[in-house]
């Protein structure tokens, strides 16, 4: 396999082309790096070569490092990671120095990077080591260093080079937020040098004309000073002082990568460039060896991609949706219609009145208008998308639909009615899906004449923003229905998980105990500030009380009543209901009512926790330790995930982890509930759960599966993760 090839032309330009066979995008492997290293040596040693252009044989430059390489390095321990990273530093440093005399800085060969399209991760770090970066004028291309998003940071010199090139402040959005830019914005941000029609031609011209001084990076020249000041420059001091606080505030202190990145920049800024690279490598090694990084890479990258590509798709022919019927044009129905139309699917959006149907279509127009105001969309595109949506009250319009998604009121009778009405007109082989979030699929399927073609497709709100779609197999749901749902989700570019039918499916099943545990603590007199902050400090995006305010306390109360009715005497959440029903009675229904566990101003802006809580639920004299509150909130979710696996609701722990992060924001730094339990270890998890059960009730009793794993010393990914290699 050859990833890199080199051609030398008569004018003395050696063009190195990166084109990994059998892949649509280039990724760098250690073998690839060795090939590139050898070609650079060859070109630098060859007197006939005047300069080098590095480009790609594909429409894009590169997607980054092959994450399996990182996983492999990690197997060898810290020394192997450090050595591997240092070997990349040597290669890139060789390119940067390009054979020049280290004292006079003369005699090097110009090396330019020509990027036809997207350049991410090492795909930008390699160009950053070159002397000039030319990118094609391709507005679709994404250029940046997204490593931080998967729990690591740019570790092949990107951190050191960008922070030295731009200064800590200007580099922060690129490094700490992983912000991706199109070529024009990347140039404005200082990440690349030129945006041109033909980057290879421009790069060739440049290397042929370049002078010695053009090859010297500022940090290799005498008198280099970090833009914006190093940490001991008064301005730089303030930058670093503020950066620490901002990173702490943004990451809640739970993401090791952001801290390590900042340390690499701070320590690196005080030494020469080569020493700075070594420092960067040491911090990168530490982060990669941290289980959080491995778990994040696994869930947010490897597993997510596998699920999106249909890891659990039954082997049936292509089921892509051509014409979609959406029943119910409320918030959810309208959102589903929008994302489908946006993905090029014809949509019939039905509601009981034309006015309601039109309102649903207007929702789509609203989202598109926002895109236009942000200059991400054109009027033309808006017209196209809207033209695909037919808003009507006429069920006959569903004729020819190959998929129906029902999103009417959560009432089995109403749902049964519309199911029958739709099935009367749709083709016999059409799949019927319900977007219920609370009602059992197998029960709803009874209203269908074709239960094997009946399935649950559960979207999250707001539909256009939430990446997860939960597909629920009813008792009789057939394989083709599953494939249909998966193909549809793929069309609309969201991430699917497939679960079996049980009360609240997977996501809500875990979210509800989380919210309930928070409410329960309010009833116990735990300081609500502590409850909310404990959750945030674990990396939950919203505390349980804020979450229930957002999703509506009214809905919570309704679910509680229905659950209580369904469970009868076994109902375990009396203590929760006491609080939630009282809130409901007081009209504190959540954010929409501008009153809930939080107080809101007239504009609906959250003002902090409602002070009246202290009167209704007097603060207990003994407040729990932070860790205990955190354990309660996290185990409420994680143990439910284990039960879902134990009961066969989940069949793939990757879905459990990806679904938790994308569905309800489960502490992403953990890689998901199963990743988190693996970090703790089953034995420790059982210990904590038992202690919680002893103090707070049986809902925390460790499930048999977890006990068994503790007894055997198993981990979830060790036992269930055969297809899901840890990074």
């Amino acid at each position, binding site marked *: 396999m050859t990833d890199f090839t080199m051609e030398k032309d008569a004018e003395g330009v050696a063009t190195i082309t990166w084109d990994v066979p059998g892949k649509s995008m280039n990724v760098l492997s250690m073998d690839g790096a060795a090939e590139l290293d050898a070609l650079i040596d060859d070109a630098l040693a060859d007197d006939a070569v005047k300069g080098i252009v590095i480009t790609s044989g594909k429409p894009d430059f590169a997607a980054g490092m092959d994450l399996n390489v990182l996983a492999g390095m990690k197997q060898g321990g810290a020394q192997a990671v450090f050595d591997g990273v240092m070997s990349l530093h040597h290669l890139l440093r060789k390119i940067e120095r390009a054979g020049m005399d280290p004292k006079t800085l003369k005699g090097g060969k110009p090396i330019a990077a020509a990027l036809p399209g997207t350049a991410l991760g090492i795909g930008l770090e390699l160009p950053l080591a070159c002397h000039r970066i030319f990118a094609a004028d391709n507005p679709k291309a994404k250029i940046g260093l997204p490593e931080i998003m998967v729990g690591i940071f740019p570790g092949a010199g990107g951190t050191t080079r960008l922070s030295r090139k731009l200064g800590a402040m200007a580099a922060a959005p690129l490094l700490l937020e992983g912000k991706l830019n199109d070529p024009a914005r990347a140039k404005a941000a200082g990440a690349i040098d030129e945006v041109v029609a033909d980057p290879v031609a421009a790069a060739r011209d440049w290397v042929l004309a370049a002078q010695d001084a053009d090859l010297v990076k500022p940090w290799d020249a005498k008198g280099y000073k970090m833009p914006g000041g190093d*940490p*001991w420059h*008064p301005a730089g*001091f303030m930058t*670093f*002082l*503020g*950066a*620490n*606080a*901002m*990173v*702490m*505030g943004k990451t*809640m*202190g739970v993401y090791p990568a952001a*801290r390590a990145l*900042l*340390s690499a920049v*701070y*320590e690196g800024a005080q030494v020469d460039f080569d020493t700075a690279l070594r420092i960067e490598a040491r911090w990168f090694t530490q982060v990669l060896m941290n289980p959080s990084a491995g778990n994040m890479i696994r869930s947010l990258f490897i597993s997510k991609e596998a699920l999106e590509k249909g890891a659990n798709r039954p082997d049936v022919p292509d089921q892509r949706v051509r014409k979609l019927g959406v029943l119910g044009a409320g918030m959810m129905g309208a959102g589903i219609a929008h994302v489908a139309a946006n993905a090029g699917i014809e949509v019939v959006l039905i509601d009981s009145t034309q006015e309601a149907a039109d309102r649903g279509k207007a929702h789509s127009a609203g989202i598109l208008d926002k895109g236009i105001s942000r200059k991400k969309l054109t009027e033309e595109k808006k017209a196209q998308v809207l033209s695909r949506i037919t808003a009507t009250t006429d069920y006959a319009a569903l004729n020819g639909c190959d998929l129906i998604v029902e999103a009417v009121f959560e009432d089995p009778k109403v749902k049964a009615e519309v199911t029958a009405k739709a099935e009367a007109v749709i083709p016999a082989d059409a799949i019927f899906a319900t977007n219920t979030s609370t009602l059992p699929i197998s029960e709803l399927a009874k209203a269908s004449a074709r239960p094997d073609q009946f399935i649950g497709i559960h979207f999250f709100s707001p539909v256009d923003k939430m990446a997860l779609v939960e597909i629920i197999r009813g008792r009789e749901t057939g394989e083709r229905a599953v494939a249909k749902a998966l193909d549809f989700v793929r069309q609309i570019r969201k991430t699917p998980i497939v679960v079996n039918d049980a009360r609240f499916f997977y996501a809500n099943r875990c979210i509800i105990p989380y919210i309930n545990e928070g409410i329960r603590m309010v009833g116990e007199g735990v*300081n609500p*500030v*502590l409850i909310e*902050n*404990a959750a945030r*400090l674990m990396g939950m995006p919203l505390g349980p009380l804020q979450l229930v305010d957002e999703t509506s306390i009214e809905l919570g109360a309704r679910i509680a009543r229905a659950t209580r009715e369904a469970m009868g005497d076994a109902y375990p959440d009396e203590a929760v209901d006491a609080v939630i029903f009282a809130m409901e009675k007081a009209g504190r229904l959540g954010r929409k009512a501008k009153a809930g566990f939080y107080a809101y101003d007239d504009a609906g802006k959250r003002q*902090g*926790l409602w002070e009246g809580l202290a009167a209704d639920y007097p603060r207990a004299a003994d*407040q729990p330790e*932070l860790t205990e509150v955190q354990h309660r909130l996290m185990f409420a979710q994680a143990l439910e995930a284990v039960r879902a696996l134990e009961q066969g609701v989940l069949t793939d722990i990757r879905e459990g982890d990806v679904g938790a992060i994308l569905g309800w924001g489960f502490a992403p730094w953990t890689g998901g509930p199963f990743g988190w339990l693996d970090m703790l270890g089953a034995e420790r998890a059982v210990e904590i759960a038992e202690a919680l059960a002893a103090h707070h009730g049986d809902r925390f009793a460790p499930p048999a599966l977890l006990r068994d794993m503790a007894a055997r010393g198993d981990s979830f990914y060790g036992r269930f993760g055969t297809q899901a290699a840890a990074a």
Partner: protein
Amino acid sequence: MTDAYIFDAARTPRGRGRRDGSLHEVTSLALSARLLNAMKQRNGLDGHAVEDVIWGNVTQVKEQGGCLARSAVLMSDLDERIPGLSINRFCASGMEAVNLAANQVKAGAGGAYLAGGVEMMSRVAMGSDGAAIAVDPALAMKTYFVPQGISADIIATEYGFTREQADALAVESQRRAAQAWEEGRFAKSIVPVLDQNGLVILDRDEHMRPGTTVDDLAKLKPAFKDMGEVMPGFDKVAMLKYPHLDRIEHIHHAGNSSGIVDGAAAVLLGSREWGEAMGLRPRARIRATAKIGTDPTIMLTGPVPVTEKVLRDAGMAVGDIDLFEVNEAFASVVLRFMQAFDVSPERVNVNGGAIAMGHPLGATGAMIIGTLLDELERRDLSTGLATLCVASGMGAATIIERV
């Protein structure tokens, strides 16, 4: 073990720590040397009379760098065999110099010491010596670093002090300082700053704003609100450390925080035998000294645990102390001290403090020991305790007892 005694204490007046401050024209070196000369003259310290000069100073760069203590000795009329030691325990540096000296005397390592400190805040900007704890991500994040003003506001939030209480304390500090000057209570210790011609540069604390009212202070904007709530958002860092807090109450401002000033202070300590040989009369005994490390985020709560410690070490109770000097770094620090020990404001900082007169970082610790001793003598009381909060989460305390 030998006892350590205070034979003399003196200080310069405190100049406003700005370009228009009277002492701005004086170097740290010159101010230190002139005060050392005054101590020599007042006590006849000819020849190798003392073992060392221990000089507290926080921002040890530029003219305050390079072991200023040694430079000051060489610049002064003291014998060159007296070496000079610069030390830094932030705001307690001057106190730590006294305590180090006292404890060496106790241990028999030398008969006497000159101890004190200097800080020319108008000339060497606070913070200009850098600090890893503020910027090194590894430590700043580990310790949940926030600037001191935020810490002072956290104290107010945690212990329930209001802006009104803080402002009232500040007004009282101004009133007491003005009265003390009016009645000449500092006369014994003030060494006017003279130029090389003997002309007076400053002979009175010039930071004071006598007549300040609560209404005046109510007009001031909180100084640390923006950095806490907006950029870069230190309140969030505080919340990570103290998750039971909903918000930080930003009650501090320039009027209820210590003033930035220039100044120096010195204390002459020695054994009874040394005093007898020199013909000097001891004024007070160092009864006990203590230092302690505390939570670095809330940072400024040190006076409470270090007072508990020094009392325990001395076998004393709060009730045994006649007067307290608690450095007024921020109003909440003093409010917290009085709350924790339930001591009457009538026994704390009776002649005002750093809110009125200013806080020359490296000197203050020695300065308040001198102030305390003068007042014990004036009131003919026996025992006093001085304490300071210290950056990065420390505290220091000294108990003195008249003899």
